């Protein structure tokens, strides 16, 4: 079957993209979602703190998702639930499967990748020891507690201070579990400051920076873990081992964009984000394939996901309407990074196709205090803004104006941090 815009993933990114595409005049929008409901990861995030930017009020994850879902349902966008996309080709042919529809092949005019991200697993960390029950990724534990109403354990150690881990430290405590410690490999937390305060400090849960789990004990069920301090090269320091008895180890050690389908389609990935590289229209290296949300780069606030996804939705609608040019190679200005900036999204802009105001999001690779964010057009500094603290856990942004770039023959844009 032929469809105009097919969105893979019905989480916050997919929903916002669908809505924006419809608002921009797209006729035919189809969302494919593998879960039994829309909303993606938000369904298990029953804590507050969503939507401060978008709705100016504090919503829970499911409430935030519901608002978008209602709006999408008011349009004639079509949603297929319990539908797993198996593959995507570079000509935008999708194969999907579901109980109701069986195997389906869809030729899409445009595709928006909105599959979200997944958690890094224990294996990727190569933690030595046994492989007992009781080791969960924070997200799996969150699903067990919040959606299945099941207690994954009573005495908990958390490795990694990503936001889901922090949130789960509080959640498990509220459910009566004892969270003994959160160990973080880096000298800084990967989570939002507000989560450290509200989820750890308020409950007296210690956060041990520059520490990691160096052994897992217990053959059947976890009985304890050994935590060691690490040096500057992140290697455990002998003699610093400390044993914690516990029945549960939660891992919150990073999120990786879900990129199986992207790679299958030949989409070029960024080494810094592990997600696709995109241009000003959030189009990937494969024409007509757009990306947004956590599949593009991992976000910490859903509001930014919705904003970014809306841009992708509009761009896809425009692509269908105008049969836009391929990725315009020569006319694109690359965005380079400098200082502590790890990456930017997008990583290139074509002034002819960018919106009036283009938000460029980025993350830094360490904690920076009282440094400037600067933007250069070739050698000329066009933005210089001081910030008290910048941290890897918090996404930053700068806004580029189309008027500043159009017809100016800029060869390179640089986003960087500077001491002065």
């Amino acid at each position: 079957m032929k469809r105009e815009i097919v969105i893979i993933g019905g989480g916050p990114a997919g929903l916002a993209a669908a809505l924006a595409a419809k608002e921009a005049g797209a006729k035919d929008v189809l969302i494919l979602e593998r879960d039994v409901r829309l909303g993606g990861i938000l369904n298990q995030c029953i804590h507050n703190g969503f939507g401060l930017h978008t709705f100016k009020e504090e919503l829970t994850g499911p409430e935030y998702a519901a608002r978008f879902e209602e709006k999408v349902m008011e349009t004639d966008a079509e949603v297929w639930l319990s539908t797993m996309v198996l593959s995507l080709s570079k000509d935008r042919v999708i194969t999907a499967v579901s109980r109701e529809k069986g195997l389906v092949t869809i030729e899409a005019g445009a595709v928006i990748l909105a599959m979200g991200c997944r958690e890094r697993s224990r294996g990727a960390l190569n933690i030595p020891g046994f492989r007992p029950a009781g080791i969960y990724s924070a997200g799996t534990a969150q699903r067990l507690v919040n959606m299945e109403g099941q207690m994954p354990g009573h005495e908990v150690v958390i490795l990694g201070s990503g936001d889901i881990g922090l949130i789960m430290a509080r959640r498990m405590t509220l459910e009566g579990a004892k969270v003994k410690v959160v160990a973080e490999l880096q000298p800084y937390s990967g989570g939002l400051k507000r989560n450290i305060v509200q989820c750890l400090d308020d409950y007296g849960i210690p956060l041990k920076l520059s520490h990691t789990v160096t052994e897992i004990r217990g053959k059947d069920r976890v009985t304890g873990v050994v935590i060691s301090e690490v040096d500057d090269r992140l290697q455990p320091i002998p003699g610093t081992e400390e044993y914690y008895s516990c029945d549960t180890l939660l891992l919150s050690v990073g999120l990786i964009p879900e990129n199986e389908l992207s790679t299958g389609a030949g989409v070029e990935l960024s080494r810094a984000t592990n997600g696709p590289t995109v241009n000003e229209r959030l189009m990937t290296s494969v024409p007509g394939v757009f990306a947004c949300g956590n599949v593009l780069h991992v976000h910490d606030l859903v509001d930014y996901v919705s904003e970014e996804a809306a841009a992708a939705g509009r761009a896809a609608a425009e692509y269908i309407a105008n049969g836009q040019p391929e990725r315009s190679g020569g006319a694109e200005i690359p965005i380079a990074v400098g200082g502590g900036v790890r990456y930017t999204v997008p990583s290139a802009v074509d002034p002819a196709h960018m919106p009036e105001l283009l938000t460029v999001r980025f993350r830094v690779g360490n904690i920076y205090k009282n440094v400037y964010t600067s933007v250069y057009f070739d050698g000329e500094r066009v933005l210089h803004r001081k910030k008290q603290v910048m941290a890897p856990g918090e996404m930053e942004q700068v806004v580029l104006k189309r008027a500043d770039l159009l017809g100016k023959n800029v060869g390179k844009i640089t986003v960087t941090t500077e001491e002065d």
Partner: protein
Amino acid sequence: MYDVAVIGAGVIGCAIARELTRYTGSVVVVEKGEDVCTGTSKANSAIVHGGFDAENGTMKAKMNVLGNRMMTRISEELDVPFRRNGAFVLCFQEEDRPALETLYERGVKNGLTDLSIVSGDEARKMEPNLSENVVAALWCPSSGIVCPFELTLGFAENAAKNGAEFRFLSGVTGVARGEDGFTLETESGEIRAKAVVNAAGVYADRIHDLLLPHDYTVTARRGEYCLCDKTVGGLVDRTIFQLPTKLGKGVLVTPTVHGNLLLGPTAEDTDDKEYTATTAFGLADLQKRAALSVKSLPTRQVITSFSGLRAHTDVDDFILREAAPGFFEAAGIESPGLTSAPVIGEMMAEKIAAALGLSKRADFDPIRKGVPHIYSLPEEERRAYIEKDPLYGSIVCRCETVSEGEIRDAIRRTPGATTLDGVKRRTRAGMGRCQAGFCSPRVMEILSRELGLPLSGIRKNTPASVLVYGKTK
């Protein structure tokens, strides 16, 4: 009263049980664990060895070569993933070349006709990612890779189909000889049989000692591994061994039948027969050694690590015998045990049948069909399955693309999956790069529904491996 009780449901016990069902007479497999394939058979290199490694004249050499030859037929009969991908043994220094030649000659004496020694350049032509430091290599085209879970399950399910019974969570604690046979004391009650087979892996010496004076000691020799993501499964197509040198036995780099890349194993003796933990030293060491074989080792793509225990004996060869009248042993079955399983099964069954005077059955059915892996089938077949049963269209494990239908099937088989790991070994759900993070709650739900147990009754593997403790507040 059974005719034969086989102790141990590893690949060896299951192969013997399957071959015994070719004969008249009843068979029971008595297993300490909760499932088949919970011991050494689940954690090894999964290589169907060519047969050049074992010393001339040993049982290991004989069984290896015969087992390798049988594997094609067995894999077809039992629907087991198996591929003859060939193997190289790498030589990194001119001065080690004589050792390579010794290995070649040993292989020839063991009966191999396909061996050759090739230059480093020739080897690199076939395997472009081999290290530039390789000066020569032994090439063995008949070496292969197999799925050790499916091989063990294939024997077990086919044995069950032909009438063998399985008793799990039934560790044998006593063996006594009576008038007309043996009485096994087990954790789930007594079992009586005319003949007993000791196929208890690293515990074989303990079983032996329950009946007979101490004779041999099984030392658990641990081997640690790292398994890498399928994206790098194509780094090499053949199994890459290293020539043993003064520095040690060397480790292998091999694709698995499912397309992952496997690195390992280390070798370290432990006096704890349950010590399947990995160690920081072991994992670092094996990666360092594996890195010698190839140009660049994708250590960032490791998705899991594990270790297995070799049943090493002081005899240093397979012990395959009738140790006392009616008491048979398949002990010390370390590598190449997986390779040898088909012929060990056949040979032991013959011995036992002769001793008990059993005759061949006419109605033995050698064919077993595995749980269908719908998403590795050609599109037409896949479509047909989904049309017949929509549950095959409901994907549970997204990394390995496993459907709810396949998981249900795995639970309903005999012997069926009762745990998360049982489902994993039968369907691969949870084996992929997210290592069950996403699918385990779903698999737990399906197990709960199929087995009629609450979620808190579902286990990862052993009865003590509790997953969740019941309802939240």
